């Protein structure tokens, strides 16, 4: 079940081959949904679900898909899954689905999903493809959560909507940093994480 190769498919994307930090994919959505933790986590789970199952489906179909139209077939699969996720969200977590607005729909265009389908699912069996999907989705979610943690903490003084910075700090002149809520700071936070990650992984450093 978890041979060495499968383990790599599952665990490599968490750090060494992280879709955001190393492949620099999915930046757009990670800037848009990370102003607070809740939407970031929901977004992460949605991407894990879509990525894992589209990987499996495409992997089953990989020998029957004509090469010329493979992108369209992949898109149809992704779109179908995204619509399912979207409807589930609207049904069970309406507030968050409002917050995420178009970004759930835009999972269709998330480069990570297309990238994994092309690079992995088209050449591998369903089980490794599933693990690869879960791994990449998790790698994406971890970064989203880290970015959202700093942005929500410094930008709103809350975590999951609960006040964590005590009132006496505000009484003594502390103020929430409004810039953290704006997308530019998400990019800079992401940049810092990439900076830290490269500094600790020598083999990733380019000249």
């Amino acid at each position, binding site marked *: 079940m978890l041979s060495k190769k499968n383990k790599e498919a599952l665990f490599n994307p968490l750090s060494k081959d992280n879709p955001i930090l190393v492949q620099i994919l999915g930046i757009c959505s990670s800037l848009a949904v990370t102003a607070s933790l809740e939407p970031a986590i929901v977004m992460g789970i949605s991407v894990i679900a879509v990525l894992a199952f589209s990987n499996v489906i495409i992997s089953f179909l990989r020998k029957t898909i004509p090469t010329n139209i493979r992108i369209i077939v992949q898109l149809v699969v992704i779109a179908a899954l995204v619509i399912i996720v979207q409807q589930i969200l609207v049904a069970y977590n309406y507030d968050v689905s409002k917050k995420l607005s178009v970004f759930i729909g835009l999972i269709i265009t998330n480069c990570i999903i297309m990238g994994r389908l092309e690079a992995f699912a088209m050449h591998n069996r369903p089980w490794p493809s599933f693990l690869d999907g879960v791994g990449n989705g998790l790698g994406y979610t971890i970064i989203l959560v880290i970015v959202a943690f700093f942005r929500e903490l410094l930008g709103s003084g809350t975590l999951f909507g609960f006040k964590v910075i005590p009132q006496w700090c505000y009484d003594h*002149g502390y*103020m929430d*940093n*409004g*810039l*953290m809520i*704006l997308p530019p700071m998400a990019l*800079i936070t992401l940049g810092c994480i990439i900076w830290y990650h490269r500094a600790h992984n020598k083999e990733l450093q380019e000249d």
Partner: protein
Amino acid sequence: MKALRNFMNKIEPSFRPGGKLAKLESVYDGMETFLFTPNATSRSGAHIHDGNDMKRTMITVVVALIPALLFGMYNIGYQHYLAIGHSHEGWFTMWLYGLLAMLPVIVVSYVVGLGIEFISAQIHHKEIQEGFLVTGILIPLIVPINTPLWMTAVATAFAVIFAKEVFGGTGMNIFNVALITRAFLFFAYPSRMSGDEAFVKLDSALGMGGGTVVDGFTGATPLGQVATNVGDQLHMTNIMGEPISCLDAFIGFIPGSPGETSMIAILLGAALLLLTGIASWRIMCSVFVGGLGMAALAHALPSATYPASLLDPWTQLCLGGFAFGAVFMATDPVTGARTKIGQYIYGLLIGVFAILIRVYNSGYPEGMMLAILLMNAFAPLIDHCVVSSNIKRRARRAAIKE
């Protein structure tokens, strides 16, 4: 002097490789070249020898900022004593109050900025660069006096790390570091950067001054008042509600960030920068021309919806940070355009954008900071276009001759 030289010579070995404090070598080098002119000159290749190194350039800019700094201090005191109803205080009392109010900001700006530069130089085993000398004095001049010190410290740290060190240190930055500091404060803590409470210091400064504010006090800057003006007539007042004229703004008796209020002090600094050839007159003049042109255009089509269009062009230039930005920020040789034609375009667009933002964007009463930062981003592109069009023109000329 000689004793100092001897002392420096004595402690030198411990900073060189192998010495006890070898890690702090660049600190020693920085201090030594700060105190004494270095003897080392290059012996080979073609070099133009000029006494004007980076340290002297930076010091000249700092000297040029002194009139604005001194007047800024006086004006802080003047506004303070006016607000508490003690406008008969002597000028020295007012200046001293301003000095005490600004001193902590200057200290914080230098300690944080230089601290990060020193640490960064030690980590990278590089020489300490003197670029922060100017930035450190610019920051207190463009940050409202009531900004809490910790905010200034956070913003300075952010700007030095993310606008300068990340790009490779002094001379490599894309954006003006002092303006990034202000922009950070402006977007992170908007409530402390504009409105009634930002620009006039009301409480005591290091134990001096303080008192009850008299009735009728409003702390909004003239541009802030213009932005919220209603109707076809402009009503600009000083902090006591008395009407003010363009002359007040020219001399500088208006609330605002410390360095930006007095046109006279800024022009003194500009004269020094132009006489010594440190700032580009092309940029400086074209900023004013661009601003004047755009202000005249806006004034030709006045509208109550955009109250700033009711200002006449000359007042427009005297208010807010326009002049300060044009003289000290736009002319930054690192972030500005370098080709001659490029400098005209760069300056002109800064002037135009600054007034454009001021007049037609009701969210921002002042547009100079954003205009300069925007054009900082485009300066390399402008230079590239100028250079490549020059190459093309000469290539064409060469082709015809054949």
